Protein backbone atom coordinates (compact mmCIF):
# COMPACT_ATOMS: atom_id res chain seq x y z
CA UNK A 1 0.00 0.00 0.00
CA UNK A 2 2.59 2.53 1.10
CA UNK A 3 5.08 1.20 -1.46
CA UNK A 4 2.53 1.76 -4.18
CA UNK A 5 1.94 5.30 -2.99
CA UNK A 6 5.67 6.03 -2.94
CA UNK A 7 6.09 4.55 -6.41
CA UNK A 8 3.21 6.54 -7.83
CA UNK A 9 4.44 9.73 -6.22
CA UNK A 10 7.99 9.19 -7.58
CA UNK A 11 6.72 8.59 -11.12
CA UNK A 12 4.55 11.68 -10.89
CA UNK A 13 7.48 13.83 -9.74
CA UNK A 14 9.68 12.53 -12.56
CA UNK A 15 6.97 13.25 -15.12
CA UNK A 16 6.33 16.78 -13.89
CA UNK A 17 10.05 17.46 -13.90
CA UNK A 18 10.40 16.19 -17.46
CA UNK A 19 7.54 18.43 -18.60
CA UNK A 20 9.06 21.41 -16.81
CA UNK A 21 12.44 20.82 -18.40
CA UNK A 22 10.82 20.48 -21.82
CA UNK A 23 8.88 23.70 -21.32
CA UNK A 24 12.14 25.45 -20.51
CA UNK A 25 13.57 24.14 -23.79
CA UNK A 26 10.55 25.29 -25.79
CA UNK A 27 10.69 28.72 -24.17
CA UNK A 28 14.29 29.11 -25.29
CA UNK A 29 13.29 28.25 -28.86
CA UNK A 30 10.58 30.91 -28.78
CA UNK A 31 13.09 33.60 -27.90
CA UNK A 32 13.73 35.83 -30.89
CA UNK A 33 17.29 36.11 -32.12
CA UNK A 34 20.05 33.77 -31.13
CA UNK A 35 23.04 34.13 -28.87
CA UNK A 36 25.70 34.02 -31.53
CA UNK A 37 24.05 36.90 -33.30
CA UNK A 38 23.21 38.87 -30.19
CA UNK A 39 26.70 38.65 -28.73
CA UNK A 40 28.80 38.90 -31.86
CA UNK A 41 26.84 41.25 -34.10
CA UNK A 42 27.32 44.06 -31.62
CA UNK A 43 31.07 43.58 -31.75
CA UNK A 44 31.04 43.77 -35.55
CA UNK A 45 31.70 40.10 -36.32
CA UNK A 46 31.36 38.80 -39.88
CA UNK A 47 28.65 36.43 -41.07
CA UNK A 48 31.16 33.61 -41.12
CA UNK A 49 32.27 34.17 -37.54
CA UNK A 50 28.64 34.15 -36.44
CA UNK A 51 28.03 30.90 -38.33
CA UNK A 52 31.09 29.35 -36.69
CA UNK A 53 29.93 30.41 -33.27
CA UNK A 54 26.48 28.93 -33.94
CA UNK A 55 28.02 25.62 -34.97
CA UNK A 56 30.19 25.72 -31.86
CA UNK A 57 27.12 26.22 -29.66
CA UNK A 58 25.30 23.44 -31.49
CA UNK A 59 22.59 25.83 -32.69
CA UNK A 60 22.78 24.71 -36.32
CA UNK A 61 21.58 21.19 -35.51
CA UNK A 62 17.94 20.25 -36.19
CA UNK A 63 15.59 20.89 -33.28
CA UNK A 64 14.90 17.29 -32.24
CA UNK A 65 18.64 16.65 -32.09
CA UNK A 66 19.15 19.80 -30.01
CA UNK A 67 16.43 18.57 -27.68
CA UNK A 68 17.96 15.11 -27.31
CA UNK A 69 21.37 16.67 -26.61
CA UNK A 70 19.82 19.03 -24.08
CA UNK A 71 18.10 16.19 -22.20
CA UNK A 72 21.22 14.02 -22.32
CA UNK A 73 23.31 16.88 -20.89
CA UNK A 74 20.76 17.56 -18.18
CA UNK A 75 20.82 13.89 -17.20
CA UNK A 76 24.55 14.35 -16.66
CA UNK A 77 23.84 17.44 -14.55
CA UNK A 78 25.22 19.65 -17.33
CA UNK A 79 23.20 22.85 -17.59
CA UNK A 80 25.14 24.25 -20.52
CA UNK A 81 27.44 27.24 -20.96
CA UNK A 82 26.81 30.86 -20.11
CA UNK A 83 26.76 32.90 -23.33
CA UNK A 84 28.19 35.86 -21.54
CA UNK A 85 30.89 34.32 -19.37
CA UNK A 86 31.57 31.12 -21.34
CA UNK A 87 31.49 29.17 -18.09
CA UNK A 88 29.44 26.13 -17.11
CA UNK A 89 26.06 27.27 -15.77
CA UNK A 90 26.05 24.47 -13.20
CA UNK A 91 29.26 25.77 -11.70
CA UNK A 92 27.90 29.33 -11.56
CA UNK A 93 24.80 28.06 -9.77
CA UNK A 94 26.79 26.01 -7.27
CA UNK A 95 28.88 29.07 -6.44
CA UNK A 96 25.80 31.13 -5.60
CA UNK A 97 23.85 28.33 -3.95
CA UNK A 98 25.31 28.49 -0.41
CA UNK A 99 24.36 32.16 0.02
CA UNK A 100 20.77 31.51 -1.07
CA UNK A 101 20.47 28.24 0.87
CA UNK A 102 21.70 29.97 4.02
CA UNK A 103 19.04 32.66 3.64
CA UNK A 104 16.28 30.18 2.75
CA UNK A 105 17.01 27.80 5.64
CA UNK A 106 17.17 30.53 8.26
CA UNK A 107 13.99 32.09 6.86
CA UNK A 108 12.25 28.70 7.12
CA UNK A 109 13.34 28.42 10.76
CA UNK A 110 12.13 31.94 11.58
CA UNK A 111 8.91 31.53 9.59
CA UNK A 112 8.02 28.12 11.06
CA UNK A 113 8.69 29.17 14.65
CA UNK A 114 6.82 32.45 14.28
CA UNK A 115 4.00 30.99 12.21
CA UNK A 116 3.39 28.05 14.55
CA UNK A 117 3.52 30.26 17.63
CA UNK A 118 1.04 32.73 16.11
CA UNK A 119 -1.25 30.03 14.78
CA UNK A 120 -1.37 28.05 18.01
CA UNK A 121 -1.84 31.15 20.16
CA UNK A 122 -4.64 32.35 17.93
CA UNK A 123 -6.37 28.97 18.07
CA UNK A 124 -6.04 28.56 21.86
CA UNK A 125 -7.34 32.07 22.54
CA UNK A 126 -9.92 31.96 19.81
CA UNK A 127 -11.87 35.20 19.19
CA UNK A 128 -9.81 37.12 21.73
CA UNK A 129 -7.74 40.19 20.89
CA UNK A 130 -4.77 37.82 20.61
CA UNK A 131 -6.52 35.92 17.83
CA UNK A 132 -7.29 39.16 16.01
CA UNK A 133 -3.73 40.39 16.41
CA UNK A 134 -2.23 37.10 15.26
CA UNK A 135 -4.53 37.02 12.25
CA UNK A 136 -3.65 40.61 11.42
CA UNK A 137 0.06 39.83 11.57
CA UNK A 138 -0.53 36.78 9.37
CA UNK A 139 -2.45 38.75 6.73
CA UNK A 140 0.15 41.51 6.80
CA UNK A 141 2.91 38.96 6.29
CA UNK A 142 1.06 37.67 3.24
CA UNK A 143 0.47 41.08 1.69
CA UNK A 144 3.46 43.23 2.56
CA UNK A 145 5.99 42.93 -0.24
CA UNK A 146 9.39 41.85 1.11
CA UNK A 147 10.94 44.60 -0.97
CA UNK A 148 9.00 47.10 1.12
CA UNK A 149 9.16 45.45 4.55
CA UNK A 150 12.86 44.84 3.89
CA UNK A 151 13.49 48.54 3.22
CA UNK A 152 11.52 49.48 6.34
CA UNK A 153 13.57 46.99 8.38
CA UNK A 154 16.80 48.48 7.02
CA UNK A 155 15.51 51.96 7.77
CA UNK A 156 14.66 51.11 11.37
CA UNK A 157 17.21 48.53 12.47
CA UNK A 158 20.21 49.51 10.37
CA UNK A 159 20.00 53.21 9.66
CA UNK A 160 18.20 54.42 12.81
CA UNK A 161 19.22 51.96 15.51
CA UNK A 162 22.42 50.73 13.91
CA UNK A 163 21.90 47.17 15.17
CA UNK A 164 22.57 45.37 11.90
CA UNK A 165 24.53 46.12 8.74
CA UNK A 166 22.23 47.32 5.94
CA UNK A 167 23.74 45.24 3.15
CA UNK A 168 26.12 42.51 2.18
CA UNK A 169 26.77 39.06 3.60
CA UNK A 170 29.21 37.41 5.92
CA UNK A 171 28.48 36.70 9.57
CA UNK A 172 25.27 36.09 11.47
CA UNK A 173 24.60 39.80 11.90
CA UNK A 174 24.31 40.14 8.12
CA UNK A 175 22.01 37.15 7.92
CA UNK A 176 19.61 37.98 10.73
CA UNK A 177 17.71 40.92 9.23
CA UNK A 178 17.08 39.34 5.80
CA UNK A 179 15.94 36.07 7.40
CA UNK A 180 13.57 37.94 9.71
CA UNK A 181 12.07 39.82 6.76
CA UNK A 182 11.66 36.71 4.61
CA UNK A 183 10.59 34.55 7.56
CA UNK A 184 7.94 37.08 8.53
CA UNK A 185 6.46 36.86 5.04
CA UNK A 186 6.43 33.06 5.29
CA UNK A 187 4.94 33.04 8.80
CA UNK A 188 1.64 34.47 7.53
CA UNK A 189 0.47 31.44 5.59
CA UNK A 190 1.84 29.00 8.19
CA UNK A 191 -0.01 30.78 11.02
CA UNK A 192 -3.28 30.73 9.10
CA UNK A 193 -3.30 27.02 8.40
CA UNK A 194 -1.84 25.96 11.74
CA UNK A 195 -4.61 27.92 13.43
CA UNK A 196 -7.25 26.15 11.34
CA UNK A 197 -5.67 22.75 11.97
CA UNK A 198 -5.36 23.24 15.73
CA UNK A 199 -8.99 24.38 15.96
CA UNK A 200 -9.99 21.27 14.06
CA UNK A 201 -7.93 18.96 16.25
CA UNK A 202 -9.28 20.44 19.48
CA UNK A 203 -12.76 19.36 18.43
CA UNK A 204 -11.62 15.76 17.92
CA UNK A 205 -13.04 13.18 20.33
CA UNK A 206 -9.59 12.02 21.41
CA UNK A 207 -8.67 15.47 22.68
CA UNK A 208 -11.93 15.74 24.59
CA UNK A 209 -11.40 12.23 25.93
CA UNK A 210 -7.89 13.14 27.06
CA UNK A 211 -9.32 16.18 28.83
CA UNK A 212 -12.03 14.10 30.41
CA UNK A 213 -9.42 11.62 31.64
CA UNK A 214 -8.01 14.52 33.63
CA UNK A 215 -4.74 14.86 31.76
CA UNK A 216 -2.94 18.09 32.53
CA UNK A 217 -3.82 20.73 29.93
CA UNK A 218 -0.19 21.16 28.88
CA UNK A 219 0.10 17.42 28.23
CA UNK A 220 -3.06 17.37 26.17
CA UNK A 221 -1.64 20.30 24.26
CA UNK A 222 1.79 18.76 23.75
CA UNK A 223 0.67 15.29 22.74
CA UNK A 224 -2.61 15.88 20.96
CA UNK A 225 -2.48 19.42 19.65
CA UNK A 226 1.13 20.25 18.91
CA UNK A 227 1.91 16.94 17.25
CA UNK A 228 -0.72 17.18 14.53
CA UNK A 229 0.10 20.86 14.01
CA UNK A 230 3.67 19.99 13.08
CA UNK A 231 3.00 18.03 9.86
CA UNK A 232 0.67 20.84 8.81
CA UNK A 233 3.44 23.39 9.17
CA UNK A 234 5.78 21.04 7.33
CA UNK A 235 3.42 20.71 4.38
CA UNK A 236 2.96 24.45 4.15
CA UNK A 237 6.69 25.07 4.21
CA UNK A 238 6.98 22.63 1.30
CA UNK A 239 4.07 24.19 -0.59
CA UNK A 240 5.47 27.65 0.09
CA UNK A 241 8.94 26.64 -1.02
CA UNK A 242 8.35 28.22 -4.42
CA UNK A 243 7.27 31.42 -2.73
CA UNK A 244 10.37 31.17 -0.57
CA UNK A 245 12.67 30.91 -3.61
CA UNK A 246 11.00 33.94 -5.19
CA UNK A 247 11.17 35.79 -1.89
CA UNK A 248 14.85 34.94 -1.58
CA UNK A 249 15.48 36.50 -5.00
CA UNK A 250 13.88 39.75 -3.85
CA UNK A 251 15.40 39.71 -0.37
CA UNK A 252 18.85 39.23 -1.88
CA UNK A 253 18.28 42.27 -4.04
CA UNK A 254 17.01 44.37 -1.12
CA UNK A 255 20.00 43.53 1.07
CA UNK A 256 22.50 43.50 -1.83
CA UNK A 257 23.44 39.90 -1.08
CA UNK A 258 25.07 37.41 -3.41
CA UNK A 259 23.02 34.44 -4.48
CA UNK A 260 20.89 32.81 -7.16
CA UNK A 261 18.59 35.84 -7.30
CA UNK A 262 21.36 38.21 -8.30
CA UNK A 263 22.62 35.66 -10.80
CA UNK A 264 19.18 35.30 -12.40
CA UNK A 265 18.38 39.03 -12.50
CA UNK A 266 21.70 39.88 -14.14
CA UNK A 267 21.29 37.03 -16.61
CA UNK A 268 17.84 38.33 -17.62
CA UNK A 269 19.11 41.88 -18.08
CA UNK A 270 22.03 40.65 -20.21
CA UNK A 271 19.81 38.07 -21.93
CA UNK A 272 22.14 35.27 -20.92
CA UNK A 273 19.46 32.66 -21.49
CA UNK A 274 21.32 29.46 -20.54
CA UNK A 275 21.90 30.93 -17.09
CA UNK A 276 18.25 31.95 -16.78
CA UNK A 277 17.17 28.50 -17.91
CA UNK A 278 19.65 26.88 -15.54
CA UNK A 279 18.37 28.77 -12.52
CA UNK A 280 14.73 28.07 -13.46
CA UNK A 281 15.31 24.35 -14.05
CA UNK A 282 17.28 24.18 -10.82
CA UNK A 283 14.45 25.96 -8.97
CA UNK A 284 11.86 23.57 -10.42
CA UNK A 285 14.02 20.58 -9.44
CA UNK A 286 14.41 21.84 -5.89
CA UNK A 287 10.69 22.60 -5.65
CA UNK A 288 9.62 19.18 -6.93
CA UNK A 289 12.09 17.37 -4.66
CA UNK A 290 11.07 19.34 -1.57
CA UNK A 291 7.41 18.60 -2.20
CA UNK A 292 8.16 14.96 -2.83
CA UNK A 293 10.11 14.76 0.42
CA UNK A 294 7.31 16.50 2.31
CA UNK A 295 4.67 14.14 0.90
CA UNK A 296 6.73 11.09 1.78
CA UNK A 297 7.48 12.44 5.26
CA UNK A 298 3.81 13.09 5.74
CA UNK A 299 2.83 9.62 4.57
CA UNK A 300 5.06 8.40 7.35
CA UNK A 301 4.10 10.96 10.03
CA UNK A 302 0.37 11.29 9.49
CA UNK A 303 -1.00 8.71 7.07
CA UNK A 304 -4.60 9.69 7.72
CA UNK A 305 -4.09 13.32 6.80
CA UNK A 306 -2.59 12.22 3.51
CA UNK A 307 -5.66 10.20 2.68
CA UNK A 308 -7.84 13.19 3.41
CA UNK A 309 -5.79 15.40 1.13
CA UNK A 310 -5.63 12.88 -1.69
Amino acid at each position, binding site marked *: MIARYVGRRLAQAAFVLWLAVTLAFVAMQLTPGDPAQALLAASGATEQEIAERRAQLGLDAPLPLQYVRYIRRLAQADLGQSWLHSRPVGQMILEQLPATAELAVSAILVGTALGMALGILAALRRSSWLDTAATAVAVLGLSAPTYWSG*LLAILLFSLQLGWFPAAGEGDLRHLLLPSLVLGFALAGSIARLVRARVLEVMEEPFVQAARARGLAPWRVFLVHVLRPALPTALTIVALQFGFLLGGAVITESVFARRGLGKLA*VEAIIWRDLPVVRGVIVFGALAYVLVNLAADLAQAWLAPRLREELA
Partner: protein
Amino acid sequence: MIKKPTPPSSSFSRQPVALAALAWLALAALGAGLASLLAPAGPLAVDTTRSLLPPGSNNPLGTDLFGRDVLTRLLWGGRWTLGMGLLGLAVTIGLGLPAGLAAGYFGGRVESVIMRLVDALLAFPGLLLAMAVVAVLGPGLGSVSIAVGLSAAPAYARVARSAALEVRAQPYVEAARALGGSEWRTIARHILPNTAAPLLAFAATQLGWVLLNGAALNFLGLGAPLGTPEWGATLNEGRGYLRDAPWVSTFPGLALTLTVLAANLLGDSLQEALQPQ
Protein backbone atom coordinates in the same frame (compact mmCIF):
# COMPACT_ATOMS: atom_id res chain seq x y z
CA MET B 1 -33.73 20.67 -5.83
CA ILE B 2 -30.98 22.50 -7.63
CA LYS B 3 -28.34 23.82 -5.31
CA LYS B 4 -27.30 27.22 -6.49
CA PRO B 5 -24.50 29.14 -4.85
CA THR B 6 -25.85 31.88 -2.62
CA PRO B 7 -25.31 35.32 -4.09
CA PRO B 8 -22.40 37.00 -2.32
CA SER B 9 -24.10 40.37 -1.97
CA SER B 10 -26.24 39.52 1.07
CA SER B 11 -23.55 38.62 3.59
CA PHE B 12 -20.79 40.41 1.72
CA SER B 13 -22.12 43.92 2.25
CA ARG B 14 -22.20 43.35 5.99
CA GLN B 15 -18.47 42.83 6.19
CA PRO B 16 -16.68 46.06 7.12
CA VAL B 17 -13.30 44.64 6.08
CA ALA B 18 -14.53 43.88 2.58
CA LEU B 19 -16.07 47.33 2.27
CA ALA B 20 -12.84 49.00 3.42
CA ALA B 21 -10.90 46.93 0.88
CA LEU B 22 -13.28 47.92 -1.89
CA ALA B 23 -13.10 51.55 -0.81
CA TRP B 24 -9.30 51.56 -0.98
CA LEU B 25 -9.26 49.92 -4.40
CA ALA B 26 -11.80 52.48 -5.63
CA LEU B 27 -9.72 55.31 -4.18
CA ALA B 28 -6.53 54.03 -5.81
CA ALA B 29 -8.30 53.60 -9.15
CA LEU B 30 -9.82 57.07 -8.87
CA GLY B 31 -6.46 58.63 -8.02
CA ALA B 32 -4.86 56.95 -11.00
CA GLY B 33 -7.73 57.79 -13.32
CA LEU B 34 -7.85 61.45 -12.35
CA ALA B 35 -4.09 61.89 -12.07
CA SER B 36 -3.98 64.38 -14.94
CA LEU B 37 -6.56 66.55 -13.14
CA LEU B 38 -5.22 66.13 -9.60
CA ALA B 39 -1.57 66.53 -10.49
CA PRO B 40 -1.43 68.36 -13.82
CA ALA B 41 2.33 68.96 -13.63
CA GLY B 42 2.90 65.30 -14.47
CA PRO B 43 5.24 62.71 -12.91
CA LEU B 44 8.33 63.89 -14.78
CA ALA B 45 8.32 67.58 -13.81
CA VAL B 46 11.87 68.10 -12.54
CA ASP B 47 12.88 70.94 -10.22
CA THR B 48 16.45 70.43 -9.04
CA THR B 49 16.19 73.33 -6.57
CA ARG B 50 13.66 71.29 -4.62
CA SER B 51 15.60 68.02 -4.31
CA LEU B 52 14.77 65.58 -1.47
CA LEU B 53 12.44 67.91 0.44
CA PRO B 54 10.62 66.27 3.36
CA PRO B 55 6.81 66.17 3.34
CA GLY B 56 5.44 69.70 3.77
CA SER B 57 2.74 72.07 2.64
CA ASN B 58 3.96 72.35 -0.98
CA ASN B 59 4.73 68.68 -1.38
CA PRO B 60 2.48 66.69 0.96
CA LEU B 61 4.63 63.56 0.57
CA GLY B 62 7.96 65.26 -0.12
CA THR B 63 10.11 65.30 -3.26
CA ASP B 64 12.64 62.91 -4.76
CA LEU B 65 16.23 63.43 -5.86
CA PHE B 66 15.17 65.35 -8.96
CA GLY B 67 12.70 67.51 -7.05
CA ARG B 68 9.74 65.59 -8.48
CA ASP B 69 6.68 65.60 -6.23
CA VAL B 70 6.22 62.19 -4.59
CA LEU B 71 2.42 62.46 -4.36
CA THR B 72 2.18 63.37 -8.04
CA ARG B 73 4.31 60.40 -8.97
CA LEU B 74 2.26 58.18 -6.68
CA LEU B 75 -0.98 59.16 -8.42
CA TRP B 76 0.48 58.76 -11.91
CA GLY B 77 2.25 55.59 -10.88
CA GLY B 78 -1.11 54.08 -10.05
CA ARG B 79 -1.81 54.09 -13.79
CA TRP B 80 1.24 51.96 -14.45
CA THR B 81 0.88 49.65 -11.45
CA LEU B 82 -2.87 49.13 -11.59
CA GLY B 83 -2.75 48.93 -15.39
CA MET B 84 -0.09 46.24 -15.10
CA GLY B 85 -2.24 44.40 -12.54
CA LEU B 86 -5.36 44.51 -14.71
CA LEU B 87 -3.51 43.48 -17.86
CA GLY B 88 -1.88 40.65 -15.92
CA LEU B 89 -5.21 39.54 -14.51
CA ALA B 90 -6.72 39.61 -18.01
CA VAL B 91 -3.96 37.25 -19.16
CA THR B 92 -4.54 35.00 -16.13
CA ILE B 93 -8.27 34.74 -16.74
CA GLY B 94 -7.94 34.66 -20.53
CA LEU B 95 -5.70 31.58 -20.32
CA GLY B 96 -6.80 29.97 -17.06
CA LEU B 97 -10.57 30.22 -17.41
CA PRO B 98 -11.09 28.46 -20.77
CA ALA B 99 -8.43 25.86 -19.95
CA GLY B 100 -9.90 25.10 -16.52
CA LEU B 101 -13.53 25.05 -17.67
CA ALA B 102 -12.71 22.82 -20.63
CA ALA B 103 -10.77 20.43 -18.39
CA GLY B 104 -13.57 20.23 -15.85
CA TYR B 105 -16.35 20.00 -18.38
CA PHE B 106 -14.97 17.60 -20.97
CA GLY B 107 -12.93 15.41 -18.63
CA GLY B 108 -11.11 12.47 -20.22
CA ARG B 109 -8.18 13.15 -22.47
CA VAL B 110 -8.76 16.91 -22.70
CA GLU B 111 -8.62 17.10 -18.93
CA SER B 112 -5.49 15.01 -18.55
CA VAL B 113 -3.58 16.97 -21.21
CA ILE B 114 -4.54 20.34 -19.73
CA MET B 115 -3.98 19.33 -16.13
CA ARG B 116 -0.58 17.74 -16.81
CA LEU B 117 0.49 21.02 -18.39
CA VAL B 118 -0.89 22.92 -15.40
CA ASP B 119 1.03 20.63 -13.04
CA ALA B 120 4.24 21.21 -14.97
CA LEU B 121 3.77 24.99 -14.83
CA LEU B 122 3.00 24.77 -11.12
CA ALA B 123 6.33 22.97 -10.68
CA PHE B 124 8.03 26.30 -11.33
CA PRO B 125 8.12 28.66 -8.38
CA GLY B 126 5.77 31.51 -9.41
CA LEU B 127 8.15 34.45 -9.43
CA LEU B 128 10.84 32.37 -11.14
CA LEU B 129 8.39 31.38 -13.88
CA ALA B 130 7.53 35.05 -14.37
CA MET B 131 11.24 35.88 -14.57
CA ALA B 132 11.69 33.19 -17.22
CA VAL B 133 8.89 34.71 -19.29
CA VAL B 134 10.48 38.16 -18.97
CA ALA B 135 13.76 36.62 -20.11
CA VAL B 136 12.03 35.27 -23.23
CA LEU B 137 10.07 38.44 -24.01
CA GLY B 138 12.78 40.88 -22.98
CA PRO B 139 12.53 43.33 -20.07
CA GLY B 140 9.72 45.92 -20.09
CA LEU B 141 6.44 46.73 -18.39
CA GLY B 142 4.38 44.89 -21.02
CA SER B 143 6.45 41.73 -20.64
CA VAL B 144 6.15 41.95 -16.87
CA SER B 145 2.34 42.14 -17.08
CA ILE B 146 2.18 39.17 -19.43
CA ALA B 147 4.73 37.26 -17.35
CA VAL B 148 2.94 37.58 -14.01
CA GLY B 149 -0.42 37.00 -15.68
CA LEU B 150 0.85 33.81 -17.25
CA SER B 151 2.42 32.59 -14.01
CA ALA B 152 -0.88 33.03 -12.18
CA ALA B 153 -2.86 31.22 -14.89
CA PRO B 154 -2.15 27.57 -13.86
CA ALA B 155 -3.56 28.12 -10.36
CA TYR B 156 -6.58 29.84 -11.89
CA ALA B 157 -7.11 26.96 -14.31
CA ARG B 158 -7.05 24.53 -11.42
CA VAL B 159 -9.72 26.43 -9.47
CA ALA B 160 -11.83 26.88 -12.62
CA ARG B 161 -11.63 23.13 -13.24
CA SER B 162 -12.91 22.17 -9.82
CA ALA B 163 -15.70 24.75 -10.06
CA ALA B 164 -16.70 23.37 -13.46
CA LEU B 165 -16.60 19.79 -12.14
CA GLU B 166 -19.01 20.71 -9.40
CA VAL B 167 -21.51 22.42 -11.69
CA ARG B 168 -21.22 19.77 -14.39
CA ALA B 169 -22.72 17.17 -12.06
CA GLN B 170 -25.86 19.27 -11.59
CA PRO B 171 -29.08 17.93 -13.16
CA TYR B 172 -29.73 21.05 -15.23
CA VAL B 173 -26.41 20.61 -17.01
CA GLU B 174 -27.24 16.96 -17.68
CA ALA B 175 -30.58 18.11 -19.02
CA ALA B 176 -29.03 20.71 -21.32
CA ARG B 177 -26.67 18.09 -22.66
CA ALA B 178 -29.42 15.54 -23.08
CA LEU B 179 -31.44 18.07 -25.08
CA GLY B 180 -28.55 18.13 -27.50
CA GLY B 181 -27.22 21.64 -26.96
CA SER B 182 -23.73 22.16 -28.34
CA GLU B 183 -20.92 21.65 -25.84
CA TRP B 184 -19.62 25.22 -25.99
CA ARG B 185 -23.13 26.58 -25.71
CA THR B 186 -23.68 24.52 -22.57
CA ILE B 187 -20.44 25.86 -21.15
CA ALA B 188 -21.35 29.45 -21.96
CA ARG B 189 -24.97 29.21 -20.81
CA HIS B 190 -24.73 26.95 -17.79
CA ILE B 191 -21.19 26.29 -16.59
CA LEU B 192 -19.83 29.84 -16.84
CA PRO B 193 -22.65 31.70 -15.03
CA ASN B 194 -22.77 29.14 -12.23
CA THR B 195 -19.04 29.16 -11.62
CA ALA B 196 -18.82 32.96 -11.84
CA ALA B 197 -19.03 33.65 -8.11
CA PRO B 198 -16.15 31.46 -6.85
CA LEU B 199 -14.06 32.39 -9.88
CA LEU B 200 -14.60 36.09 -9.20
CA ALA B 201 -13.47 35.59 -5.61
CA PHE B 202 -10.33 33.81 -6.76
CA ALA B 203 -9.71 36.51 -9.36
CA ALA B 204 -9.44 39.08 -6.56
CA THR B 205 -6.84 36.91 -4.82
CA GLN B 206 -4.96 36.48 -8.08
CA LEU B 207 -5.02 40.25 -8.63
CA GLY B 208 -3.16 40.59 -5.34
CA TRP B 209 -0.59 38.05 -6.49
CA VAL B 210 -0.15 39.68 -9.88
CA LEU B 211 0.33 43.14 -8.34
CA LEU B 212 2.77 41.89 -5.71
CA ASN B 213 4.94 40.00 -8.16
CA GLY B 214 4.62 42.42 -11.04
CA ALA B 215 5.82 45.25 -8.82
CA ALA B 216 8.57 42.91 -7.58
CA LEU B 217 9.86 42.47 -11.13
CA ASN B 218 9.76 46.24 -11.57
CA PHE B 219 11.63 46.59 -8.30
CA LEU B 220 14.27 44.17 -9.60
CA GLY B 221 14.71 46.43 -12.62
CA LEU B 222 13.22 43.96 -15.13
CA GLY B 223 10.15 46.05 -15.98
CA ALA B 224 9.43 49.71 -16.44
CA PRO B 225 12.45 51.80 -17.48
CA LEU B 226 14.15 54.08 -14.96
CA GLY B 227 12.16 57.18 -14.10
CA THR B 228 8.75 55.56 -14.65
CA PRO B 229 6.51 56.36 -11.67
CA GLU B 230 5.38 52.70 -11.38
CA TRP B 231 5.33 51.92 -7.64
CA GLY B 232 7.79 49.01 -7.64
CA ALA B 233 10.22 50.90 -9.85
CA THR B 234 9.95 54.03 -7.67
CA LEU B 235 10.60 51.90 -4.60
CA ASN B 236 13.79 50.72 -6.26
CA GLU B 237 14.81 54.24 -7.29
CA GLY B 238 14.27 55.61 -3.79
CA ARG B 239 16.35 53.05 -1.92
CA GLY B 240 19.55 54.74 -3.08
CA TYR B 241 18.84 57.59 -0.66
CA LEU B 242 16.82 55.71 1.92
CA ARG B 243 18.69 57.36 4.79
CA ASP B 244 18.23 60.96 3.65
CA ALA B 245 14.76 60.73 2.11
CA PRO B 246 12.88 57.63 3.29
CA TRP B 247 9.58 59.09 2.01
CA VAL B 248 10.53 58.47 -1.62
CA SER B 249 10.42 54.67 -1.14
CA THR B 250 8.05 54.43 1.82
CA PHE B 251 4.92 55.93 0.26
CA PRO B 252 4.81 53.91 -2.97
CA GLY B 253 5.51 50.82 -0.84
CA LEU B 254 2.63 51.68 1.45
CA ALA B 255 0.29 52.28 -1.49
CA LEU B 256 1.29 48.95 -3.01
CA THR B 257 0.94 47.04 0.27
CA LEU B 258 -2.52 48.49 0.88
CA THR B 259 -3.61 47.62 -2.64
CA VAL B 260 -2.34 44.04 -2.41
CA LEU B 261 -3.86 43.73 1.06
CA ALA B 262 -7.20 45.06 -0.24
CA ALA B 263 -7.22 42.57 -3.13
CA ASN B 264 -6.38 39.68 -0.77
CA LEU B 265 -8.99 40.69 1.82
CA LEU B 266 -11.57 41.14 -0.90
CA GLY B 267 -10.82 37.67 -2.21
CA ASP B 268 -11.06 36.19 1.31
CA SER B 269 -14.35 37.95 2.07
CA LEU B 270 -15.88 36.87 -1.21
CA GLN B 271 -14.82 33.29 -0.58
CA GLU B 272 -16.18 33.40 2.96
CA ALA B 273 -19.46 34.86 1.73
CA LEU B 274 -19.76 31.94 -0.66
CA GLN B 275 -19.10 29.31 1.99
CA PRO B 276 -20.98 30.47 5.07
CA GLN B 277 -19.66 27.70 7.32
